[in-house]
């Protein structure tokens, strides 16, 4: 796909609570973009909107030049918009191989074809040794990597990673950074990285969007974000997330 995945003036309200207000953003193909913001800023809600899990109250989602706002999640996945989940959400009773196979089958392959693609994908991500493990028994970081591998099955045009580095050590986060670089380079896939690990975002994203209380308050390249008053202010206002403040300050 040569066109960006776009949110156009998207607003989402949950019974009066405004989770997103008039958010417009482009996720360009074959690039890494970042999305940061304090807890409850609306990042996951935006991912849900972009992947068909949440219909925008107003505004639209455009994929490949076409308005896809009304499409259900499985159809958007078939159009090449993949995602991972903050909570992993692996099929915990299935083997790792089958977790990937489901995507192949969901996108129309036979089980045999899907299994062989899944084997290749596990190899590509470097987790072939997990193939026969039951997904529900995996440690946290492996669970994350399987989630990413599952999303990458069948080479999506875009993949939205919702806090993939949560709970990872610095070393593991470095591996993740390498993996994301390969996703872009080898698969020509556009990545949206949502992370509280700001240093990771600053390191690998070309363009970063900042969300606070449902509004996009700033965007730009890492150099700009690092020095942005608005961003600093948004994070200073929150408690907790010492990590983020630390990374920015």
């Amino acid at each position, binding site marked *: 796909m040569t066109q960006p995945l776009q949110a156009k003036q998207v607003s989402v309200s949950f019974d009066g609570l405004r989770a997103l207000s008039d958010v417009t953003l482009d996720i360009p193909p074959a690039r890494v973009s970042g999305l940061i913001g304090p807890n409850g800023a609306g990042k996951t809600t935006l991912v849900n909107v972009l992947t068909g899990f949440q219909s925008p109250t107003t505004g639209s989602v455009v994929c490949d030049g076409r308005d896809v706002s009304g499409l259900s999640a499985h159809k958007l996945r078939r159009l090449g918009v993949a995602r991972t989940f903050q909570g992993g959400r*692996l099929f915990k009773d*299935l*083997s790792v191989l089958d977790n990937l196979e489901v*995507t192949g089958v969901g996108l129309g392959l036979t089980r045999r074809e899907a299994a062989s693609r899944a084997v290749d994908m596990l190899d590509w991500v470097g987790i072939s040794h997990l193939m026969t493990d*039951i997904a529900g028994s995996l440690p946290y970081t492996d669970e994350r990597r399987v989630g990413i591998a599952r999303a990458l099955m069948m080479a999506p045009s875009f993949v939205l990673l919702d806090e993939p580095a949560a709970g990872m050590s610095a070393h593991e986060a470095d591996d993740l950074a390498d993996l994301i670089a390969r996703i872009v380079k080898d698969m020509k896939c556009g990545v949206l990285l949502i992370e509280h690990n700001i240093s990771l975002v600053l390191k690998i994203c070309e363009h970063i969007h900042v969300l606070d209380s449902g509004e996009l308050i700033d965007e730009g390249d890492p150099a700009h974000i690092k020095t942005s008053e608005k961003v600093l202010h948004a994070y200073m206002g929150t408690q907790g997330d010492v990590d983020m403040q630390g990374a920015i300050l």
Partner: protein
Amino acid sequence: MSTTKHPSVLAQTVSTPVILIGGLALIAVLTWAFGSNIFGRTVTEMFIRVALVVGMFTFIGNSGVISFGHAGFMCIGAYGSAWLTIPPMMKKVLLPGLSPMLANAELTFFLSLIIASLFAGVIAFAVGLILMRLSGIASSIATFAMLAVINTIYSNWGPVTGGTSSVVGIPITTGVWISFGGAAAAVVIAYLYGISRSGLALRAGRDEAVAAAASGVDIYRERLIAFTISGALCGMAGVLYAHFLGVVNPDAFYLGVTFISLSMLVVGGMSSLSGAVIGVVLISAIIELLRKMEKGITVGEGTLSLPNGIQEIAIGVVMIVILMFRPGGLTGGAELSLTRTSANDGYSKKDQGSGNHPDNKPRR
């Protein structure tokens, strides 16, 4: 990308249906060799139940949605075959409202078995178009409503169904071997569905519907496929039952059979095919034992007999006890298997823990 060799799912899992059918065949052979007539009837009834419960499993086990309505498909299959096989002379009197085509039909048992089962499948498909859009408890309640509707129609559409009175004159053809054949066919079909694309996708959606959608799975579609196949299998069980008794009436396919068949599924373990079969065999054995004891056993001079109704109570107690100690049923969702790889093929469910993550709940 290279194509890597990976053992096929069939090769890894085929021992499960082979073991199950082998076990049932053993029961059939022993019954044929040593059993009395009466025992033969008990075993026949058990095989019919295997077909029914395995049919229910095809939907319930793979989708995780409990259905209270599958006895309705049994009803549809049974009456369908009654319409097709009762001699036309009798039908003119008993069921004057039948269309000429049905009124004049007098099909052979096997042809009728296939047509009436498919008919139940078609009805399941039509109902499923609506019901499968619902999820969770709403869909379970809706299946119960469907059962009530089917029962009401068959109880009141006198000219076509004979109303609440029994429809007689159905050729009696179902014996031990034919019912065994039906049970074995149900096991094979349920197994093949389980390892199919649709079966895998549906099981993925069972616990993580959201993640399944994010994998391109259209859960509605997969549920509809499973519901249709399972409706046809339960319809087949109904046909076998009609040709076992020679008589049908709507209340034979209502709450009683719903309760028993769901108990069997739950006791065996509702998320494995082995569980469905084991549950039927076990509960059938208990029922038979209690039935004997209700009639009374001679102890020395007098006879000792249990009060009537003890069957239902005992089944209820067995179910509660098993669920207390093994919430996943006797099999806990695992399959009987020779290769011990069933855990790796996604065809079995190992652990019943709840793993809901604090993600946003998508609204669609």
